[in-house]
C-alpha cells in the first residue's frame, strides 16, 4: 500500500467508511492516549449498532460529563453493546451516560476484568482464539462458564476479541503507519491496533518514513503498522 493512502486530511475523512454494526476498540487509559478527536468524529459520522470496546465508557475525571468519550455515541443511540472493565460508576456521586441506557435495556454491557480485556485483544492480534486465566474464577462473572483445572488451579476460558476498527492515539506516526507512544500513552493502543482489521490513529506529529535502519541499533517504533 502506498504510504500516501494512509493519511487523511481530517478526522471525519478517516472514520468515513466505518459501517453500521462494526466492532470498534477505543484506546486510552485515564485520558492518556485516548482518541478524543476520533470519538467526536465517530459520534458525528453516525454509524449505528456499534459494539464499542474500551477500558471505560468515561474518559476520566478531567473530561466533561458528555465527553469527548463514548458517552456522546451512547447518547446518540449509536451503540448496541459495550465491552469494558468499568460499566458502572465507582463512586455514588458519579453518573455514567451508559447507566440509563443499560437500565432501559437499550445497550448490553459486558463487564470484563481489565487484564482479561487486554489479553483478549492481544490474543486476537496474535491469532489465538481463546485462553485460560485465573481472573474472575469463583465470581459472578464466571457463573455458567467453562473452567478447567491446570496443575491443581482453576482457570476460566476467555475468547479472543477481534476488532473491525481500532481508534487510537499516539505521539508520532510516520507515513507508513509506524507509531511511537509517549510515556503511559501506550496502554491499550498498540494491542487494539494488533487486534483490528483497520487501525485509525490520531497523532500529535506526522513524519516522513525515516531511512531504513543501518548498523547495530535498529529504529525501535512502538507499534508497526
Amino acid at each position, binding site marked *: 500500500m502506498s504510504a500516501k493512502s494512509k493519511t487523511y486530511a481530517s478526522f471525519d475523512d478517516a472514520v468515513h467508511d466505518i459501517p453500521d454494526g462494526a466492532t470498534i476498540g477505543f484506546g486510552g487509559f485515564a485520558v492518556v492516549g485516548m482518541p478524543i478527536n476520533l470519538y467526536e468524529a465517530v459520534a458525528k459520522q453516525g454509524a449505528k449498532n456499534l459494539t464499542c470496546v474500551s477500558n471505560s465508557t468515561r474518559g476520566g475525571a478531567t473530561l466533561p460529563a458528555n465527553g469527548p468519550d463514548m458517552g456522546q455515541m451512547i447518547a446518540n443511540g449509536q451503540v448496541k453493546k459495550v465491552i469494558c472493565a468499568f460499566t458502572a460508576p*465507582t463512586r455514588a456521586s458519579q453518573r455514567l451516560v451508559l447507566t440509563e441506557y443499560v437500565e432501559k435495556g437499550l445497550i448490553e454491557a459486558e463487564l470484563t476484568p481489565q487484564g482479561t480485556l487486554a489479553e483478549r485483544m492481544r490474543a486476537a492480534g496474535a491469532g489465538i482464539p481463546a485462553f485460560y486465566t485465573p481472573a474472575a474464577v469463583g465470581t459472578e462473572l464466571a457463573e455458567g462458564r467453562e473452567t478447567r483445572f491446570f496443575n491443581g488451579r482453576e482457570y476460566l476460558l476467555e475468547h479472543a476479541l477481534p476488532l473491525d476498527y481500532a481508534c487510537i492515539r499516539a505521539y508520532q506516526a510516520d507515513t507508513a503507519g509506524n507509531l511511537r507512544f509517549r510515556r503511559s500513552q501506550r496502554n491499550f493502543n498498540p*494491542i487494539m491496533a494488533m487486534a483490528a482489521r483497520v487501525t485509525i490513529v490520531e497523532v500529535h506529529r506526522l513524519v516522513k518514513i525515516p531511512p531504513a535502519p543501518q548498523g547495530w541499533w535498529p529504529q525501535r517504533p512502538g507499534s508497526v503498522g
Partner: protein
Amino acid sequence: MSERAKGLSRQQMCDRLAMEFGDGWIVNLGIGIPTLCSNFDFGDKEIIFHSENGVIGYGPLAATGKEDLHLVNAGGQHVTLRPGAAIVHHADSFALIRAGRLDVTVLGAYEVAENGDFANWKISAKQQGGGIGGAMDLAACAKHVFVAMEHQTRDGRPRLVERCAIPATARGVVDLVVTNFGLFEVTKAGLALREIAPGVTVDEVKAATGCNLIISREVPPVRMVA
C-alpha cells in the same frame, strides 16, 4: 472524634501494611486508601511500584506545574518516574500480574470474609454492572493480597464478615487486612486480630466485627512509624 474515625488514621493504616513489604518487592496499590502506602519511608528497601497501565517503577506525585500529561498511574494521578522505570502496554502489564510476578497488591474493599474472600467491584448485589478495573486480575494472581479499609460502613455495619453479601472479587485470597481498629490476618483457622489500634478495646473490635475473631490473650498495639 466521630465513632467512624476512631483508631488509626488512613495513613497509619497504610504505613502498617507498607512495613510488611520486602526489599525488592513489586507492589501495586489500588485506588483510594491504598495509594497512601507510597508515602511510607521505606529506608534502604527498594520498592518497585507497578501500575495497571504499564508504568513499572513510578515515584512520587509530580509537583504542580511539573506534570507530564502523558504519565499517570492507574488512579489517573500524574506521577514521576524513578531511575530504571519502564513503561509497557496493558497486555504486558497484566502478563506480569498474571504470571505471579507481583509480590503484593493492596486493595480497598467493601467487605472481607473470614475465609479470605473479598468484595470491591460492586456496591450492592442489585447494582447493574460494576467497576472491576484490574482488581480481579490482581487479586487472583498477586503473591499477597492486602486490604486497607474502614472497619465499618458509614451506617455502622461491619465490613469484616463471615461471608460476603456483595458479589466477590476473588475467593480465599486475602492475607492481611488493616482497618482503623487494627491489623487482621486471614489464617486457616479463621480471622485473627494481630494488632489493635491505640484507644480501641478488644470488646469494641469484637462488637464492630461480623465474624468470629481469633484473639490471643494479649494483643499488641499496632506498630507505628517511629
